[in-house]
């Protein structure tokens, strides 16, 4: 195992609290000043089956961007977890099980391996102080003890997270943790090569990208959100439903995604900042509404959280298969923006930025995220979430005084930049107008006059010029003129970055070109970044390579090598390194 870091994995049945235990442990590790990432892997079911949660914690300054495929400490809440993950264990890895776990079926494999199997009365300890639901707490405390991680960080997380359930639950969990920790310290002591410890670090958050995005909508002044639950977008809807009342927002769980997008359009038309979101099929249902927003020039922000398709696909897994969907969804021709944030803080700022761009150009902004981002807990410096860096830009509005001086207000006035000033419908005697999904005149009334049609279509598509100016060039990471250039977007950023660092630390020469704003395609910047590259490898979580295709067709740069992963599982740096070697 690498120095200064430990790869943990917690496994059990759905319903055993694998994910909440994992996320809580991430929080404790973050409070200890360590660098942490936590990724769940679960099936589409409420009970039973096998779920697991992987955590990588490192006592170092540099962030960890990816979990490892090898496991140093496995917390097996059932026998199946041992069978499932035994072959991932690192040399002398530690497996923690309850003493009553029946491991007879895999005894010979366990005997042949060099794992250190700890059979601990974790359930008994849990029941003694509380109930068997606290078994996870006991297992985590044992893991902490043998990893050299101080239990006090667990205690503080237990106190904060269980406070709503009352002192009794807090005390019981803490007693369970303490006894299990003491027992493991006495019996086993440190079982890994180096104690995890703790370190002085700046204040850090431990959060999902969906949470970061939802926070960004609140800070960005979004007032209305309508949506329908669908994995992996639901947690945004849930976070905002929980925060709406205190933060001046109205959140509507609609009857379906069609209603959700149309409610959002209605609210935005009426003058409030609004957004919606969904995943695959739910987003498909919204495409008709997206086209309505385009014709009526209603600002619309849609979060598209990708998961593998087609159809229901793998509902609790990840993919990057919807890039072309985001760029081309909905009928008719109209300009749009597609953003693809790659870190929690980027998700936070993307929300506010999307709201601004949508209002500035009265256009569609799609923010692409994915299941990996939605569920991965990452620790990030709090200073990266600078609230003052979020400004509100609402675009062109006409004032009451300007209306007083006008003969007539034209909502769809033909302008040089294609953007016609808005007004809140009905806010002034002259602010009374029609907005229609039919082609229309400057005053909004329906028209099929070919000159009017051309004027309006040209006007709407002229916005593209301004919208292009919002697009940022791809990020460049690593040294210039490297032998290898990895090209990525979205969630492949972290694993590729860590792979690049490892290559360069070991005498290799690699750099990265990472796309952050996908559309309008930053053609010139891409040509600048890639035309002199010696060896380009495009890394994407899909089979057809949409980014590679966009680079070839728009920037005219041939792509010879691609690494595509479409098993529903996220990338790791180990996977990328192995593929590059092949």
């Amino acid at each position, binding site marked *: 195992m690498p120095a200064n870091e430990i790869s943990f994995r917690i496994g059990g049945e759905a319903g055993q609290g694998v994910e909440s235990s994992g996320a809580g442990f991430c929080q404790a590790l973050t409070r200890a000043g360590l660098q942490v990432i936590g990724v769940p892997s679960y099936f589409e079911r409420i009970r039973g089956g096998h779920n697991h949660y992987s955590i990588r914690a490192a006592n170092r300054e540099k962030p960890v961007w990816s979990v490892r495929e090898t496991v140093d400490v496995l917390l097996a809440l059932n026998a199946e977890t041992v069978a499932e993950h035994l072959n991932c264990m690192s040399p002398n890895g530690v497996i923690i099980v309850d003493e009553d776990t029946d491991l007879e079926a895999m005894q010979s494999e366990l005997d042949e391996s060099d794992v250190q199997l700890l059979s601990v009365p974790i359930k008994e300890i849990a029941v003694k102080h509380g109930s068997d639901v606290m078994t996870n707490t006991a297992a985590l405390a044992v893991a902490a003890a043998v990893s050299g991680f101080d239990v006090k960080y667990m205690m503080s997380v237990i106190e904060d997270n269980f406070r709503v359930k009352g002192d009794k639950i807090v005390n019981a969990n803490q007693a369970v943790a303490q006894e299990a920790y003491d027992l493991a310290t006495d019996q086993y002591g440190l079982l890994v090569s180096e104690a995890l410890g703790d370190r002085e670090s700046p204040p*850090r958050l431990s*959060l999902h990208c969906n949470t970061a995005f939802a926070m960004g909508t609140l*800070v960005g002044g979004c007032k*209305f959100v309508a949506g329908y639950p669908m994995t992996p977008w639901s947690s945004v809807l849930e976070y905002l439903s929980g925060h709406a009342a205190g933060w001046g927002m109205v959140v509507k769980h609609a*009857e379906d995604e069609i209603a959700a997008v149309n409610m*959002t359009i209605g609210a935005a038309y009426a*003058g409030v900042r609004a957004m919606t979101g969904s995943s695959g099929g739910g987003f498909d249902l919204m495409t008709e509404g997206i086209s309505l927003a385009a014709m009526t020039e209603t600002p619309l922000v849609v979060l598209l959280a990708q998961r593998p398709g087609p159809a229901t696909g793998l509902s609790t897994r990840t993919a990057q298969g919807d890039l072309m969907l985001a760029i081309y969804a909905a009928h008719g021709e109209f300009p749009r923006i597609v953003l693809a944030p790659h870190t929690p803080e980027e998700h936070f700022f993307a929300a506010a930025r999307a709201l601004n761009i949508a209002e500035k150009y009265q256009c569609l902004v799609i923010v692409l995220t994915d299941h990996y981002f939605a569920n991965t807990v990452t620790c990030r410096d709090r200073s990266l979430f600078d609230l003052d860096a979020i400004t509100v830009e609402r675009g062109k509005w006409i004032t009451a005084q300007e209306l007083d001086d006008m003969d007539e207000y034209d909502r769809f006035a033909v302008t040089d930049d294609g953007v016609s000033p808005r007004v809140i419908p009905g806010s002034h005697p002259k602010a009374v107008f*029609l907005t229609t999904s039919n082609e229309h005149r400057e005053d909004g*009334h329906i028209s099929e006059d070919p000159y009017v049609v051309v004027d309006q279509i040209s006007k709407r598509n002229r916005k593209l010029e301004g919208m292009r100016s919002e697009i940022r060039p791809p990020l460049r990471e690593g040294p210039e003129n490297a032998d290898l250039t990895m090209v990525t977007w979205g969630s492949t950023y972290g694993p590729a970055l860590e792979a690049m660092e490892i290559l360069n630390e070991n005498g290799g020469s690699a750099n990265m070109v990472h796309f952050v704003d996908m559309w309008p395609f930053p053609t010139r910047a891409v040509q600048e970044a890639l035309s002199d590259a010696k060896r380009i490898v495009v890394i994407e979580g899909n089979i057809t390579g949409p980014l590679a295709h966009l680079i070839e067709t728009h920037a005219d740069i041939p792509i010879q090598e691609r690494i595509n992963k479409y098993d529903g599982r996220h990338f790791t740096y180990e996977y990328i390194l192995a593929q590059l070697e092949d």
Partner: protein
Amino acid sequence: MATLQEYAVDIRPTWCSGCGDFGIWNALKRAFVAAEYDPQDIVMVSGIGCGSKMNDYMRVNGLHTLHGRPVPVAQGVRLANTARKVICVHGDGDGYGEGGNHFLHAARRNMGIVDLVENNHVYALTRGQYSPTSYKGFKTSTSPFGVLEKPVNPLGLALSQGATFVARGHSLDLEQLQHLIVEALDHRGYAFIDVMQVCVTYNREMLYDWYREHTYKVDENGDYDPSDWDAAMKKAMEFPGGDRVPTGIIYRTEDVPAYEEGEPTLEAGPLVDQPLRTRPWEDYQILLDEQM
């Protein structure tokens, strides 16, 4: 006070001469004047169909949307700006076919919008196919041997889903229709009006005489109690199916709060008038504290 002239625009409707939409058009404008609304107070959200072009032909805040979708759009407008009177105007294909799901949920949700469905029992703008309310056996271009399905019962559907204002009018009786719209505008929650209307081009079997022969007013004897849900359901089940078409306010209760009355954020007034960030700037640090 607004006058009929203020609702006029210089655009001529594209409707066929003799179309029921003319009657609904006039009843709407008269109702707005009678209820003392100015054009700027009204947001008229429509779908797609002949009658959905209503807001192209009058001076109101109009939002002419997609086939089947005006109801959710109208609910979004309502939540964003409770200071406006939001009225949905769309046809039977729009409201009971493409938008059928939205209709069910609007009825139980009880948001304060008026939902006026122009029900001519046929698809007219797409040139004569059968609609969700076409009677069984009706021959059209998509039912050459006659419709095989039973028609939708809009009043019964609305009532069964808990609608708090259920009415039926028709395009021949402007006085009654105007009255129904005025009452609907005054209703606290979701006010649903099924407006039966002639289509002189594609439904030649339900013309003016048919209406004269089949419709009657529920309160013609002065003994109908619109607060009696069971009686209302009985009336709703009379048509389609029977020969007589009850009209008027079939059911009404003002005892059920509108959806938006329960929305905590709207206690501070219309959303559109609230600041984008409602809390002191330093409070926003709490969002970060929560993730520590």
